[in-house]
């Protein structure tokens, strides 16, 4: 009896669960659902929560994620209008807007939807890049740069195609990767290196130039200082001579005495060093020696 009760309750609970599974379904906050009746679309459920349904195979429920999906395109190699090849990939943020159309277009498969978006994204991306110069993408000059505009153009192109055809909407587009192909990279490296080498040369010559100019300035300044000093010297000596001349005016009072004294001084000065003198007997005071030989002094 007890066993029976348990069996009864258990089977009752199992029946309820089974019926719930057959007649109800839930839609999560993050989902939208499409209900089909005998394979024909009957309605979409966009409000999350508890829902009634008829059991399979009468009604069938498809659930889709209604959140923003992120999809990254493949990297490929478009060419800019000034013939520079780039590697570029973009990411798309998209969302299912019309679950019915989405179900019809892709059988509800997000992977298939992304496979469909891939060529659209690449087409838009490569087309837009072809319209722009390389400097629109890379430049220190804010005015030249059209990066945001390029993204916008790509977005518009993708949106125009995707808008009404697939039951999904593109909400954002951004450039994920921007590179140069391997064939160009070495030339860029080479140029970067050359640029650096130019800088090295510039720095070296700048160093030389500045060094030399410092040296020249220093030499100039030194010469100037010496020249000024010499001029000063001449001036000082000139002044001194001028001053001395005042005193020498005294000599004008008795010029013959002055000359005599100068002669004396000159003799004295010239005989300072060891000199050999050969003197005649007329030279006073040696004239006295004459007297000794002749017997009388003859000074006068």
């Amino acid at each position, binding site marked *: 009896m007890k066993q029976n009760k348990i069996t009864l309750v258990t089977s009752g609970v199992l029946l309820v669960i089974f019926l719930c599974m057959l007649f109800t379904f839930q839609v999560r906050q993050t989902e939208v659902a499409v209900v089909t009746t005998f394979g024909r679309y009957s309605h979409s459920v966009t409000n999350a*929560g508890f829902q009634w349904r008829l059991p399979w195979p009468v009604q069938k429920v498809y659930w889709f994620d209604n959140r923003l999906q992120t999809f990254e395109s493949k990297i490929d190699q478009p060419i800019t209008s000034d013939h520079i090849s780039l590697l570029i990939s973009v990411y798309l*943020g998209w969302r299912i807007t019309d679950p019915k159309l989405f179900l019809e277009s892709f059988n509800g498969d997000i992977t298939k939807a992304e496979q469909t978006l891939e060529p659209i994204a690449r087409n838009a991306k490569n087309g837009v890049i072809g319209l722009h110069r390389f400097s629109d993408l*890379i430049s220190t000059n804010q005015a030249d740069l059209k990066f945001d505009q390029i993204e916008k153009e790509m977005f518009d192109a993708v949106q125009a195609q995707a808008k009404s055809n697939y039951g999904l909407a593109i909400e954002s587009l951004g450039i994920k990767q921007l590179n140069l192909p391997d064939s160009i990279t070495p030339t860029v490296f080479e140029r970067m290196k050359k640029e650096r080498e130019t800088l090295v040369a510039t720095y070296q010559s700048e160093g030389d130039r500045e060094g030399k100019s410092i040296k020249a300035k220093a030499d100039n300044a030194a010469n100037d200082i010496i020249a000024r000093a010499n001029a000063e010297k001449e001036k000082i000596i000139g002044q001194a001579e001028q*001053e001395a001349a005042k005193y020498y005016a005294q000599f004008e009072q008795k010029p013959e005495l002055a000359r005599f004294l100068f002669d004396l001084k000159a003799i004295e000065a010239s005989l300072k060093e060891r000199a050999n003198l*050969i003197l005649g007997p007329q030279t006073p005071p040696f004239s006295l020696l004459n007297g000794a030989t002749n017997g009388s002094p003859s000074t006068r």
Partner: protein
Amino acid sequence: MERNIQPIGIINWCALLVAAVISAILARYASAAAGTAGVAFLVLGFLVAVVSYFQMRLEERERLERLEFDELKKSKGASTLFTEGADTFPALRSRQQFEKFVIPIFTALLFLLQAGAAWWLWQWLGKASPPKLNAAKMALALYALFALILFLLGKYSSSLARLEGQRLLRPGAGYLMLGAFISGLAALSEAAVLGDFPKVDLSIAYGLGVVLALMAVETLVGLVLEIYRPRVKGQEARLLYESRLIGLFGQPGGLVTTAAQALDYQFGFKVSETWIFKFLKEAVLLIVLLQLGALFLSTTFVIIDPNEQGLLEHFGRQGGARATLEPGLHFKWPWPIDKVYRYQTRQIRSFVVGEVPDSDEASARTVLWTKPHFKRAEGEGPEAPGMLVASRSQTTQTNKNEKPVPANILTVSIPFQYRITDPVAWAYHHADPDQLLQKLANREVIRYLINVDMDSIMSDNRLAAAQEIRRRVQARADERKLGVSIVFVGLQDIHPPLGNKQIQVAAAFEQVFSATQQKQTNILYWQAYAARTIPAALASATNIISEARNVAVSKVALAEGESARFTNQMAAYQASPSVYTSRSYLETLARSLGPASKYVITATNTQDVLTLNLEENIRSDVLKSIIAPPDMNKAATNK
């Protein structure tokens, strides 16, 4: 009761053999992993069926022998000539021998085969090729057919074994049922292949490998337990090579009965009749139900860990005021009405834009430009293509005709750290918010670098750049409603690329630094020269001037002195001009002629030649002066 079961035995092993061979071909053709695993089971089943068939034949011969003996006994009556000797029943003896030696040896062999098959299967599955799609339909049909045939045969044999107590049919029947079951699984896995789930095939095969290993364990355990089993007289020996596990397929008696039988057999008494076993048997359903009930009730509360936040959904809808659950205990409606999704919001999450630092090189204490320090996949160069960066010098130098690529490439590695601040936004707005954030960050880094000067971002602008990138990514994330806060952005690495062997870019950059150093050195050298030269010039200038001053002063002083003296001399001269002149003349002469060597030639009118040797007095450098005697008188009289 005494029906000859040998034909059925033959049919069993033949069926298993045929199924095994065809399965093997099929599995190879369709490269089905589950099918290959099934072959192992079928071959084992075939072996077991063959052995039990031989045992059947022996028992049959024994039975005939006994019948014959009984007939003989009856016809001969109570003849004493006939005695029951040891060699009277050769069939009985050979059966006993068979049971004593062949069966244990075969069982041991079976164990080795099972274990070996399991091991081989495991190895083989590691390098199995994916199932072929074109063969799947045919394989599906054939496997389904096998499943049906084997099931019918197995069911028949197992019913016969149960109803008529033909224990020798049981092992074969068990393997037939198992073969049917596995063929069914193989068919299922082929269906999965058709339905584009090729993984299922491999999972089933792995599962079968596990079953095979379990069977091997069971055989081993059976062998060991056989040694310790009490021998009850008259009890029919169990077939050692029969698997109880496989028996489950053949006997619908269920788990409990099989377990009870196994226990009874092992301990030699009716364990299944003890009260505890009976209780367990009755209560097992209740216990299971209680367990399930407890499991169900455990879904009525949830404990959120300290680093988490939970999102509550009521029938999939966001749970109103209780949408986000803070750490702690929370009650909720049981599953599947309320569900809680956990998010580790307080945890710092991180990712890297650009190059991912190589963890192997993390032990190195220094990170140099010229040494590779990033994670590389096989076959890649030392560096991936870096990021494009504009350069101010480049834009000014661009020659439009030559079309150089006006961009630089830098190696960049920027770690980002972030934290989820709003789990609702994080979970409900984006299918893959983490990926989206990484892509946004990537885009912002590119966007920043293409518009910035290379030299400035590598040096003075570095910190500001990190701040700017963080600001922009945060703005983008807010715009996209990601519900995150960027905690940190660091320009961990931003430097020129290594380049390759021919073009060493990073090294060239380093040379620029050494060039600037050289420039500075040069300038400093000449500055030092200037610092030396100018003071030296100043010093010599001062010297010149002070010398000049000295000269000037002495000149003036001399002039002054001389003039003063002249005044006095003039007075003396005026007093007596001739005396003064001759006196001063003679005084001077005497004073100055002192050191000079003098030759006075007194004979004026002689014609002699005077020879003077002046050598001793004349040094080569000494001025020689010969002074003619001045006309003293004339000078004096002129006054």
